[in-house]
């Protein structure tokens, strides 16, 4: 699908994120003057020699592109991570059902002989435990990302 590029979307969302501040004074009580800042930025560029202004515009577009690209990649990673969590959760639920079923079949038995299904149950328990660990790790990364602490978030912050 050929809509506007992700970099463009990223730049747009950055602008949108700044919008709520426009109506409110900052902590010093000075109203936000985004429009004036934008105009002066254009004025500054217009006052520069053409070739310098051209290079500066290129740098600005380049930084916007880097930010947009990083943001789009981070979004994609997050989507994949959420899909991983959903998939692992589903597998764990399935294994739990298998485990319960195996337990249910095991309990009525009164024989003292070792049941061959004990090994199966132990293996299933092991798988559940492994997946639970993986799930917790992914969930932890997800929460960290949501709290703005993902590597991508850090990358964006330090850019």
């Amino acid at each position, binding site marked *: *699908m*050929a*809509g*506007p*590029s*992700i*970099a*463009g979307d990223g*730049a747009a969302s950055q602008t949108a994120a700044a919008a709520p501040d426009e109506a409110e004074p900052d902590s010093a009580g000075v109203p936000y003057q985004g429009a004036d800042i934008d105009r002066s930025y254009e004025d500054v560029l217009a006052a520069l020699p*053409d*070739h310098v*202004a*051209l*290079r*500066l*515009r*290129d*740098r*600005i*577009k*380049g930084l*916007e*592109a*880097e930010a*947009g*690209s*990083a943001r*789009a*990649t981070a979004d*994609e990673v997050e989507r994949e991570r959420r899909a991983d969590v959903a998939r692992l959760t589903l597998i764990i639920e399935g294994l739990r059902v298998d485990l319960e079923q195996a337990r249910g079949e095991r309990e009525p038995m009164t024989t003292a002989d070792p049941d061959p299904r004990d090994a199966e149950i132990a293996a299933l328990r092991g798988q559940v435990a492994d997946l639970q660990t993986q799930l917790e790790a992914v969930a932890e990364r997800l929460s960290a990302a949501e709290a703005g602490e993902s590597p991508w978030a850090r990358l964006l912050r330090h850019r």
Partner: protein
Amino acid sequence: MTFRALLGAVGVAHDNAGFAATTQSLIAQTDTRWQWTVVVAGGRALLTELSDFAAFEPRITVLDGSGVDPAEYLPLAVRSTRADHLCQLQPGDGLDPGAVAAFRAALAVRPWLYTDEAWPFADGNGHREWRKGGYGPEMLRSQPYAVRSAVLPAAMVAQLDWPDPAAGSAQWYDLVLRVAERCGDPVHLAGPYYLRSPVPEPPPAPWIDGDPGDRCAVVADHCRRTGIPITEVRPIDTRGRPMGQRVVRRRADEPSVSIVIPTRGVASLVYGMPRRHVVALVDQLQASRRYPDLEIVVVYDADTPPDVVQTLSRPGAHPVRLVRYSGEFNFSRKCNIGGLAASGEYLCFLNDDIEIDTADWLSEMVALAREPGVGAVGAKLLFADGTLQHAGHRMASGRPGHALFRCAADSIELGGLAQVCGERVGVTAACMVLSARIFSEVGGFWEDLPASYNDVDLCLKIRATGRRIVYTPHAVLHHFESQSRIPVVTIEETEAIQRRWAFDMLHDPYVNPLSVADLDPATH
């Protein structure tokens, strides 16, 4: 409660061939919310036969087409359908079993969609595929690639002034164009969800439906509705096969153009004869008076032979501005210097080792560049041996390359991509037209890329502003770049372009996602 389907398919039956196969493909759908309405155009006996056949399935409606004008068959079926979305499904054609379910998910994102197509061999041994690229309005004007498999919003169709009696066999193309005008970009659902009726030997894509005259008429009508000034729309045939159509834009009030040629004044052998490239090119430009308001800006290196500079400064039909460049090799910087020295409303960056084949190449490119929403336009470039050097950029696994590189000039691969106008992720700066305003707005060429990828970066910057990059095969030029030349790309250039555009270089919207693995990053 009245049943309302998600997907209402419509078709016309002239005989009983394929009716059962289509029915089976619908019954096999994992999402059961479909409906198929068929107008029978084959007489009373056929109507009875198909009605009896469909009696077991309430989702199939058979309508009597006797006494109905053939132009009214599909509209009659559309009016009789109670569904949220419409698609064309002729008897014999089929849908992948997961099609309706996939349509439902995609239609939650955009109001209309199109899919890839497959055409099976009648003996059951495989099929040919038409893997399409992402949507572009210029591409849809040039080729009905998003038509046969289009799924359209029924509510929107009901509001349209459709059918147009003049549309003839291109009725559905007309409908898709009208929906696109109102709804904008569709979802491209990658994968052959639409299967054409099997034949013994299906041809390679593209598969163009409808009479050429009818197609041209509906595209001309679309241009009138959308304000595109045209003189005519004419069909394009390549290797005896229909590829689509060419929209010839009207030449009026053509803006001033500056052709910027960076050069070192070198010569090489072309067809066994020595050719001083920049002199030959400027001579060719000066000899042509096809473009009225033209300026030639030559940015030459300090070590350019003095006789070359002297020859270039001869007066001619068009003014020549000579700009001396000192410093180490940097194609981007030379282009920027030329762009800033130019006075034209539009800029055309042109390599010096170029020979122009199409007389009206510049008018064609400028007309496209003036179209609202278009940021830059590229041409069809051929090597000296006539093979394709450039038909637009394509990204493969994060690396840019030229589409159909070294294929025959009349190649119909990739659905005839090289033969029709269409959107691309980028075009080469060896011949690129864009407005001086856009050039300045995005900061020109990135000078940290002295040799490679500077055009890729420029086009991506333009695309990031929401504008489209368009390729036209109706401006043909020879580019005497050595075919055996191994492009030297420095690590710094690769790292720089990937730092800026890592995501976009992995997501070329005009490359079919299923084909990415097939593309050779070196030559695609």
